[in-house]
């Protein structure tokens, strides 16, 4: 066992604001675990606001500040290759986080699996439709992807296609939402509702924001009940929509778990240890967490009971009634 | 004309009085130590070479520029003309040399700018009637008062600027080369107008390079040279005197040209005879 680090600088670089998880869960989780493992260590947090060159600046900057390990959630998975090279040439460890860096192996990769997420939400929706005995007939599904300029969105999109292509439900139309913007998703969905009307059996949306936009479009068109709509990220707003019966599913990302794992890996790497890898992805030793799909059925078990969100946060005002139905108090 | 020149100090109230006014633009001293008095019912002509500082002085009185030093007294009380609306509120109306019209607005809007009738529901008809009345008074030839200033000729614009200044009930009117772009008829009307305004007891400051016009309406002629006072004259002063004071030399291009032309025409006439 080599000497445990006591005073190193570790950087935690996140890609964007589009998902609130990074600032609300990942970073706090990481910081808390680091505090536990290495109270003398310093954690630098940066968010690149979806800008690959800003991320490069941040990367350079944390190296200037003496970071010896960098947890990197790349804005652009391909472009991040050069960051890894740069770090390794200076003896700095890089832990790929959330999104992989395929072309140049980092020292470790810890993540939920984005492609897996895409497949999971699609599968869950398909299963739901089948269980309701809804025939494809001349109907089908809408697919709302993330930003066309976001590599992670590309992975989710790929996963959704894997899930849907063999489902028997055709994709009526598909849309890449610029900047993941919910109003854009709403506008597009409105158009499809006029186009396809009752033929829309469900919507696979790549995250909760775009899913919320689709729900708003159905509501605005007076469609009742709203066909099942997926999400991803388990934002409180989305959980509330699930409680209210407006959204079908989302993905619970108790990102604190992944973040804690990343902190462990970082400390091990800094201490000269080799962290235990469960699997290898893109030649990188990896630890992949399988995120849970959350629907009304398992919301209490996955979210409340696991203390990811408290009942008080979730069951405000008009959602109290729905909560009660799901057995949440 | 000669009936005024004998009294050095006119009888009316002292409307405006400047003492030791200077204005620097960076390293350039545009005005140095200027004194000037204007009385009610008096037309003071301000003459001087190009760049002598006449417009700068007018702009100081209109609140456009602030003097670097010196005092301005208006109707007995010292005033600070910190912006144009102060000057307008005191009753100082100005026609600027650069006209200061809004090219994107039409003639009516320009004439009434800042003094529109019925602020919450502009009375366009009344304003248009008044605009035509003012313009006709000035013999203006303007095809329509509903076209933007940008499509007017130089003289038409100047007429509009003059019409603007008649809208107020001012105590003092400053006219910076009001007839420079005007036709002969319009010039005559403006000179008439200046006389009428003077007779109503207003003070008038007029800048002009046309000595004939100056002599026709001015009660007193104040000469500026290179930003300094360079003498006060009366309308009966000779052209030679005035031009000498303006250019600062008895031997100047005007006198030389006059001399040459005289000589030439003598020769021609001799030849013809």
């Amino acid at each position, binding site marked *: 066992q080599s000497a445990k680090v006591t005073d190193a600088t570790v950087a935690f670089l996140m890609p964007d604001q589009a998902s609130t998880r990074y600032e609300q869960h990942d970073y706090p989780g990481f910081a808390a675990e680091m505090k536990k493992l290495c109270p003398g260590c310093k954690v630098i947090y940066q968010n690149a606001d979806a800008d690959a060159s800003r991320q490069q600046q941040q990367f350079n900057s944390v190296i200037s500040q003496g970071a010896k390990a960098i947890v990197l959630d790349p804005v652009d998975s391909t472009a991040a290759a050069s960051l890894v090279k740069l770090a390794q040439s200076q003896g700095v460890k890089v832990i790929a986080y959330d999104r992989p860096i395929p072309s140049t192996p980092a020292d470790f990769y810890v993540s939920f699996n984005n492609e897996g997420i895409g497949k999971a939400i699609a599968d869950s929706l398909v299963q739901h439709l089948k269980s309701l005995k809804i025939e494809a007939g001349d109907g089908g599904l809408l697919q709302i992807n993330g930003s066309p300029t976001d590599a992670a969105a590309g992975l989710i999109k790929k996963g959704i296609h894997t899930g849907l292509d063999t489902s028997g439900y055709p994709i009526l139309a598909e*849309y890449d939402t610029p900047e993941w913007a*919910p109003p854009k998703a709403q506008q597009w969905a409105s158009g499809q509702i006029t*186009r396809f009307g009752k033929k829309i059996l469900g919507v696979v949306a790549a995250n909760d*924001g775009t899913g919320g936009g689709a729900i708003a479009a159905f509501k*605005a068109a007076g469609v009742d009940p709203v066909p099942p709509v997926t999400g991803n990220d388990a934002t409180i707003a989305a959980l509330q929509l699930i409680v209210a019966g407006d959204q079908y599913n989302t993905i619970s990302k108790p990102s604190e778990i992944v973040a804690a794992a990343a902190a462990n890996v970082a400390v091990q790497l800094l201490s000269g240890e080799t962290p235990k890898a469960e699997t290898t992805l893109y030649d990188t030793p990896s630890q992949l967490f399988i995120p849970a799909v959350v629907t009304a059925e398992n919301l209490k078990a996955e979210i409340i009971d696991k203390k990811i969100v408290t009942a008080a946060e979730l069951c405000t005002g008009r959602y109290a009634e729905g909560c009660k139905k799901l057995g949440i108090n | 004309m000669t009936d005024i020149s004998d009294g050095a100090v006119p009888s009316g109230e002292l409307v405006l009085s400047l003492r030791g006014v200077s204005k620097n633009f960076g390293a350039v001293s545009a005005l140095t130590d200027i004194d000037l008095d204007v009385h009610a019912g008096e037309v003071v002509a301000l003459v001087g070479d190009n760049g002598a500082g006449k417009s700068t002085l007018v702009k100081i009185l209109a609140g456009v520029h602030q003097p670097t030093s010196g005092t301005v007294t208006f109707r007995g009380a010292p005033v600070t003309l910190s912006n144009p609306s102060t000057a307008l509120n005191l009753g100082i109306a100005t026609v600027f040399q650069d006209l*200061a019209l*809004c090219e994107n*607005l039409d003639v009516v809007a320009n004439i009434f700018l800042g003094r529109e009738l019925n602020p*919450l529901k502009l009375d366009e008809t009344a304003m248009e009637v008044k605009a035509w009345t003012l313009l006709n008074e000035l013999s203006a030839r303007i*095809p329509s008062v509903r076209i933007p200033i940008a499509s007017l000729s130089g003289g038409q614009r100047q007429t509009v600027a003059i019409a603007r200044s008649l809208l107020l009930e001012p105590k003092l009117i400053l006219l910076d080369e009001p007839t420079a772009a005007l036709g002969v008829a319009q010039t005559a009307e403006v000179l008439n107008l200046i006389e009428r305004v003077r007779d109503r007891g207003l003070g008038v400051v007029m800048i002009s390079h046309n000595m004939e016009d100056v002599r026709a309406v001015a009660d007193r002629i104040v000469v500026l040279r290179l930003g300094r006072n360079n003498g006060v004259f009366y309308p009966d002063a000779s052209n030679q005197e005035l031009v000498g004071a303006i250019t600062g030399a008895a031997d100047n291009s005007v006198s030389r040209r006059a001399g040459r032309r005289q000589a030439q025409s003598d020769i021609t006439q001799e030849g013809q005879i």
Partner: protein
Amino acid sequence: MTGTIKQAPPLLDRSDVRVKHETGIGGTVSAFFERVRSGDLGSLPVVVGLAIIWTVFASLNPIFLSSNNLVNLLFDASTVGVISLGIVCVLMVGEIDLSVGSISGFASALVGTLWVNQGWPVALAIVAAVAVGGLFGCLYALLFNRLGMPSFVSTLAGLLAVLGMQLYVLGSTGSINLPYGSPVVNFGQLLVMPHYVSYTLAAIPGIVMLVTGFRTIARRRAANLSAPSAGSIIVRAVAITLVLELIVFYLNQDRGIPWMFGLFVGLVMTMSYALTRTKWGRSMTAVGGNREAARRAGINVRRIYTSAFVLCSMLAAFGGVLAAARLASASQQAGTGDVNLNAIAAAVIGGTSLFGGRGSAYSALLGIVVIQSIANGLTLLDLSSSLRYMITGAVLAIAVIVDSLARQSRVSHGRA
């Protein structure tokens, strides 16, 4: 002097022999064609551009012209349209506000927090959000008037700072659902005018035109000025009423006219009145055309700038509230992306100059309808993102080419 007046022909404004005048209905018509020929068309070219866009989209997918889809279009146009109306104000005085997107997002976040999370009455929350928006306008005006900071820079700084505030306010929750079924969300998503209301409202412009038109004729005749013929006024009033009622009739086939769109149009008409028929509007135009001339005319130029900035940011905040109502949610992405650019572009496409002194409230209406038509039409086609961007760009250019051509001809006819 009396001589001049004696020589003048009876009408004060018809004394110049060089000007051709057309009278009566025939005159109106031929004057119209003369104007078309010389390129002096007002907003007609953009309308033509719009017609082309509509025809193409309708031929690609007939649903585009379904009244249901058009009603969607009107809902969507209203939110950014209100923001664009504020942009018209700052453009009129030759300034810009780059922060309208952020302010709209911040306002929606505020409404979400204050109303849903803090339990304030919704009206109070909206008023608070709009007031806070106004504060930013005050700040820009202060920086502009006192320090002479160019609005491009101050509002760029504002864009970033206000976005930070939006993220901060939403920090703990991410995004906030506005309750479905609440009046505000219904207003943003569902509420349409009862048919008799929309038919009545559509008749009003024509009536106003008739009444004021006849009053103007009477007053101008009395003042010895030329006056438009009663016939031409009637023709115009009837034409506009017919067109409006037809539109209303068509949209009433489905849901009908959204109240939110009615509100937007109401704001546009109020702003148009304020800009063209009040002293304030005259001063705005003057300041935008020639700031120094306006100052010399005694206009309180600073106050005018302040009013423009404050109005702009208040309308931006209000537009943000409407956007939140439309989406039933206040999110971190609200107001980001192309909200800024769309709001400014709508005003410019509609014909308001970026350089001040020239523009109209209707440009916001026209411009946003163009932009939303493109967006809406494209959602009905199955296109890849890359194609979608390329086509949006191309169609935008086409919509404006018609206008540019008309302007060219106007310049060459000495009408610029």
